[in-house]
């Protein structure tokens, strides 16, 4: 046993690594130094460990990063600066793609608009609610006047009348003269639906529509007696009906079925129709 405060070799050896780490307290370091001064064996072990550690340090430190590493780190940081922006940009692009694809599919599937199929099924859903003779006018109003996009620029009454041909040209001014204020004839043409030919004149006030429809009467077709007949001044029975937002009024001549279908109230629709009945009757005779 050495003197108090002095180390034996085992104790000294146990402190060599801590000494190399530089983590001995001053007192510990001084005590170890005194032992090493007098002990060649422990000093040699310390020198060897120092040398091994130096070799270890050298070999680990010999590994260098690839030459471009610092550049990549710097550009990574610069990209990282705007990374939030880039990420939002990416998200925005992704969202745009989703909206475009989804939107296109929805459009294709008719979620945003009425496809020809959905139009027909809409017509099929409301038309049976009225008497068969009324359906003839209603279906074509919905099919041809309602499901249509109207251009902002209108043709004149004369131009429209011209497009119907001399036989029916007079219908355009007849309708224009009797529609409520603000309505404007915007369409006059021949059209057909379910194999039936129509003369079709449409007046429009913003989203409200009035259709005057004339079609050839085929055998046996007549306004039935159970429909409410509104006696007109001229003595022509006018029949009136309604379904959803549509009001239908009609009368018959020997050759034609004549309809006025509109978004007006049933009463107003009938009144407008009655007012033009005499003129129509004259024109269609």
């Amino acid at each position, binding site marked *: 046993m050495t003197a108090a405060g002095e180390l034996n070799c085992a104790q000294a050896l146990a402190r060599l690594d801590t000494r190399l780490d*530089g983590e001995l307290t001053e007192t510990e370091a001084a005590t170890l130094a005194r032992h090493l001064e007098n002990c060649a064996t422990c000093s040699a072990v310390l020198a060897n460990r120092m040398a091994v*550690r130096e070799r270890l340090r050298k070999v*680990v*430190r010999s590994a260098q*990063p690839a030459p471009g*590493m610092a550049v*990549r780190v710097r550009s990574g940081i610069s990209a*990282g600066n705007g990374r939030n922006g880039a990420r939002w940009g990416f998200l925005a692009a992704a969202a745009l793609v989703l909206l475009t694809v989804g939107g296109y599919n929805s459009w294709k599937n008719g979620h945003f608009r009425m496809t020809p199929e959905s139009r027909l099924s809409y017509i099929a859903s409301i038309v049976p609610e009225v008497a068969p003779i009324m359906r003839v006018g209603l279906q074509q109003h919905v099919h041809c006047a309602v499901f249509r996009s109207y251009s902002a620029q209108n043709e004149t009454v004369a131009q429209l009348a011209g497009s119907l041909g001399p036989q029916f040209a007079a219908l355009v001014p007849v309708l224009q003269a009797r529609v409520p204020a603000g309505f404007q004839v915007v369409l006059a043409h021949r059209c057909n639906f379910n194999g039936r030919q129509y003369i079709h004149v449409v007046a429009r006030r913003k989203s409200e529509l009035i259709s005057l429809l004339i079609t050839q009467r085929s055998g046996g077709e007549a306004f039935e007696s159970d429909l409410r007949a509104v006696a007109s001044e001229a003595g022509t029975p006018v029949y009136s009906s309604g379904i959803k937002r549509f009001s239908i009024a009609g009368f018959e001549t020997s050759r034609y079925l004549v309809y006025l279908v509109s978004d007006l109230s049933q009463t107003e629709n009938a009144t407008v129709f009655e007012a033009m009945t005499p003129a129509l009757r004259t024109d269609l005779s």
Partner: protein
Amino acid sequence: MAKPVPAAGKRFFAKANARAEFEAEAMPHLDDLFRTALRMTGDRARADDAVQETYLQAWKSFDTFEKGTNCRAWLFRILFYTVHHQRRKLFRFPVADTAEEMLESTLAAPEPIAEELRDEQILGALDSLPPDYRAAVVLVDVEEFAYKDAAEIMGVPIGTVMSRLSRARRMLRAQLAEAAKSYGIGNTARKGEAS
């Protein structure tokens, strides 16, 4: 008359200043971080990734770095967090700790002689240590961190650093003594050729 600098301008200049500071404080430690990452991950590509990620994270949180404190230790802390994170993700290292088993055979290890060791033996012995032990040796022996800093970098108490170091060095010595013994003849012959 000096025009007032708009807020956006101030932010821009603050950013530019921070960037210059980061360049001066953090970038000089790139080599140290890389070689440590290389020892901890085992291959250059992973080390590369770990260092990139370390600098990115460091830059992002550079405003939380206390000026005047040890930037190198701060970067190493981020590196170890990153590597640890990658390691957990990759399951690259065996979870079972074979350290105790290895220690059994090292109780009376002879001292390896520095001149008898070749570089690849030293590196091989270091790399064969369990990761936590290897980390302690790399941080203290190679990177010359104080125990206190090594403890912070590894996120363990100082006592744990000391016991890991003590065990790691015993294992290292046993490995190196074994290596020197088996390659000793070849080593001597090569030395003879060289002289």
